[in-house]
């Protein structure tokens, strides 16, 4: 199924961009292959450990249970640290986010207008966490092909982006990104993400992601455990009412 989808994508891409040169087309298809690896599961769930590591090497740990359906629906329920246990976030389409904090009771809608802003203390920005496929947001070109990797340069279509470009190193066999290097508007590399994958069922799971902010010398390590794909999670799990524990019946 995955393969056939790629073929379809390739055909569409070929038809649509037949006037563009072959290299650009290759790059575009490679980026779509990457999107496929990242975004193809219908749903996934698992336990997330988030390590915030500062320049002195001090660690802060957060843990959450994560549910995701498609690319647009996402819920995080934090379990650690104890002081933040019970906090939950719900991401809905169009960048809408709801936050539940047990001490305050009612869930609140938050809009984050600043895309470049850090996502609650991590080195990921809201832009990095976006769920729209890369191939829709970036214009790629193939820089290099070697024994193990394709190296793509992708340039954001959105001029609001904090990035001037991202250099993506793709695994040649499986099309998952091994490394992403982020360049600021002055064309200096300032962030770097490295990925480790494991195969679970039909999918490649990013078991560990490390995002390093080179100028702040700060790192965020995200470990995804106990991952299950395509469990058929119903849409009802992603409602505001579900943010509070016990299905929102108590506060």
């Amino acid at each position, binding site marked *: 199924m995955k393969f056939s989808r790629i073929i379809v994508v390739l055909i569409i891409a070929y038809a649509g961009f037949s006037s563009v040169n072959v290299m650009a087309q290759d790059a575009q298809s490679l980026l779509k292959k990457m999107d496929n690896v990242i975004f193809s599961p219908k749903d996934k769930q698992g336990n997330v450990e988030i390590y915030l590591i500062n320049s002195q090497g001090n660690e802060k740990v957060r843990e959450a249970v994560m549910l995701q359906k498609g690319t647009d629906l996402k819920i995080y329920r934090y379990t650690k640290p104890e002081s933040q246990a019970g906090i939950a976030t719900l991401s809905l389409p169009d960048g809408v986010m709801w936050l539940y*904090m047990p001490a305050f009771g009612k869930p609140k*809608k*938050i809009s984050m*207008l600043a895309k470049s802003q850090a996502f609650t203390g991590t080195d990921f920005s809201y832009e990095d966490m976006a769920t729209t496929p890369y191939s829709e947001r970036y214009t790629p070109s193939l820089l290099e092909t070697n024994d193990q990797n394709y190296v793509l340069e992708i340039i954001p279509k959105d001029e609001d982006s904090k990035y001037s470009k991202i250099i993506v190193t793709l695994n040649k066999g499986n099309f998952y990104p091994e490394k992403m290097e982020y360049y*600021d*508007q002055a064309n*200096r590399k300032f962030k770097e993400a490295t990925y480790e994958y494991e195969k679970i069922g039909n999918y490649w799971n990013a078991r560990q992601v490390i995002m390093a902010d080179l100028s702040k*010398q700060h790192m965020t390590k995200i470990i995804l455990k106990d991952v299950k794909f395509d469990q058929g999670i119903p849409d009802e799990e992603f409602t505001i009412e579900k943010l509070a524990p016990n299905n929102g019946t108590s506060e």
Partner: protein
Amino acid sequence: MEKLAKAVLNLRWFIIAVVFILTVFLGFQISNMEINSDVVSALPDDDPDVALFKKVGQDFGGNKIGMIILEADDIFHNDVIYDVKKLTDSIGLMEGIASVTSITNIIDIRSDQFGFEIGKLIDEYNLPYSDEDLLRLKNRVFSKEMFRGVVVSEDATATLIMFTLTDGADIQTVGRAVIDKAESLQLDERLYYAGMPMMVTAISELISRDLIRLLPIAFLVIAIVLFFSFRSVRGVLLPLLTAAIAIIWTLGIMVLAGYKMTMVTNNIPILLLAIGSAYTIHVINKINQVKEKDFKKAILSALSYIFIPVTLASLTTIVGFISFIFEAYLTMIKDFGIFTAVGTFISAVLALFFAPAVIYAFSFKSKRNAIQENSNRKSLIATYLLLPLKNLLFRHPKYTLTIWSLLILLSSASIFLIQRNVDIKDYFKQDNPARLAEDIMIEKFGGSKPIFISFKGDVQSPELLNTMLRTEERLKESSYVFTTQSIADLIVEMNDALGEGRQIPDDRDKIEQMWFLLEGNSILKQFVSDNLDEGLIISKFASSDNAEKEEFAREMEQFINENTSDAFEINMTGMPFIDMKMNRSLLTSQIRSLLIAILALILIVGIILRSFPTGLYATAPIIAAIVVLFGVMGITGIPLNIVTVLVASIALGIGIDYSIHVISHFNHSYKNGKTLDEALEDTIMISGKSIFINVVSVSAGFMVLIFSEMVPLQYFGILMALSMIGSGLAALTLLPVILILAHRRRLS
């Protein structure tokens, strides 16, 4: 002495070679000289106020915040907003800059019935353009304490672009780069640069500019004075050569010992030029005076005579410098004391060993010529200056005494008028951009002198946060505090956005959970320690008036004592309080270093002249000169500051030499059977001439500092010249009169 003198001449080539090698070696070291213009680093670590200030600056990065002030007729104009954005974006992309905050990218929290929006005050990709948009923005800015008077001035004519430096960044490099970048944009608005990093950059640029510009001028001025005094190549070149070598050695040793150039040590080269050349002048003068046909014998005889006077002169000068080492508050003044003492020692050694070696080795035989010139000039100075002076003194000794007494009386009264000034702003000339920037900060942004109040304890406890709020309220009761910032303010803001009102939540859980949203926000680092055991109130104080500072400190201390609890500890520090200490220390360090210097000199001179009363006579003229110096400071309003505080003790160390000269000469003549009048006439006519030349050349050297870029150094130059003239004059007028009167009384 003669043995030593012979050794100098025999080992002449060896001495020259050693000096040459050392000079080359130490000269190379100077290329590694670094400038440290960070005033904070010069503060003493053992002062608890300072220790806390430094720690807070380091832990919370407060010393690394720089500011660009953008001034325009109206900030809320689309062109101006556009330029602010341009500036913000350009600075943000520079190497060494960690973050930039300005009106175009500052975070704003808004709330409605559903929730809240963490966004930005201005949508940077859709800048406000219409009058309506701009008015809305203006109202928003002035409705929030976070922005009003913090980012935009109350009169809407100035806005701040604040930036922080990355941890490893070199302050001066980044500071200069920021200025260059901002200027290269060629904006229509006026730009100024403030904050510690920019101040440090400005001062260090002034220091290096001074060094490069002033030293050549000083060399030239002294060369001219020397030429008119000696009219020989030897008389000009040799003093300058030894002074140059002494400067190179001293600076080289400074580098080797790991010291950096500061705004006080900056004047070491000029000081050494003035002092160092004088010792060689002494030596050459003596060689010129010896009426001996054989060149070698002439040098030998001169050298064995001059050895002791030059050693003593340098010894007394060193005492003046060393008096700072014990009593200075600022470490840069201690450094100054140490290295001027070292430099003085080197100058004396070079004058006594190197200068004669060179004269002999290269057979500088302009001797006859020099003597001729010498006697000519002697008659010139003698006829028009010394002779009338001598006549006046002999005819009217009591007149002279009365004039000096009146002068001293008047000066003593004026001493109480002396002002003290430690305000860093006043280091700069009126039209210096750094000073203008400071003025704008004071006028439009509530000052530039940071105050920090640290709360050690559980930062997430409602009790601590509420005390923080109360402390901020109390701070703002002062008429000189306009803005305060802290984590408590942020919590109140968040709580409000969450629909719970403008207050600190009573429930600790709420505060802890709010942290989920705050965490990772770069502003948090400025207010709270990483492990949440220390929080900070950041404020500014707008007055440079010392009495205001004292009163404010007293009131705040009382408030803090009343509000400290078992759960947390409150400590206050800040530049205004450190200024207060510096201000107090100016007086104590002035008095103590002067006392140390005077006592040491009376002792040394007493030992040299083998009579304690003579020691007192000798110090009397220089003390009189210093009293007059203080009087001038009181009347003209030249303040005591971290540089002018040095003048009195240095003047004491240098000026005492004139008195020693006069007394030695007088005693020598008197004991050799001359009458009182003859002996005095001899002294004034012969020693008077060398004192005159010395006063002129040393004062001229110091006067070059008038061209300094830094106000304290200008004052230093003027006051040093003044005290040289004063002590020279006192040694030639007051001292002879004292001697006349003392001897007359004894005779009668």
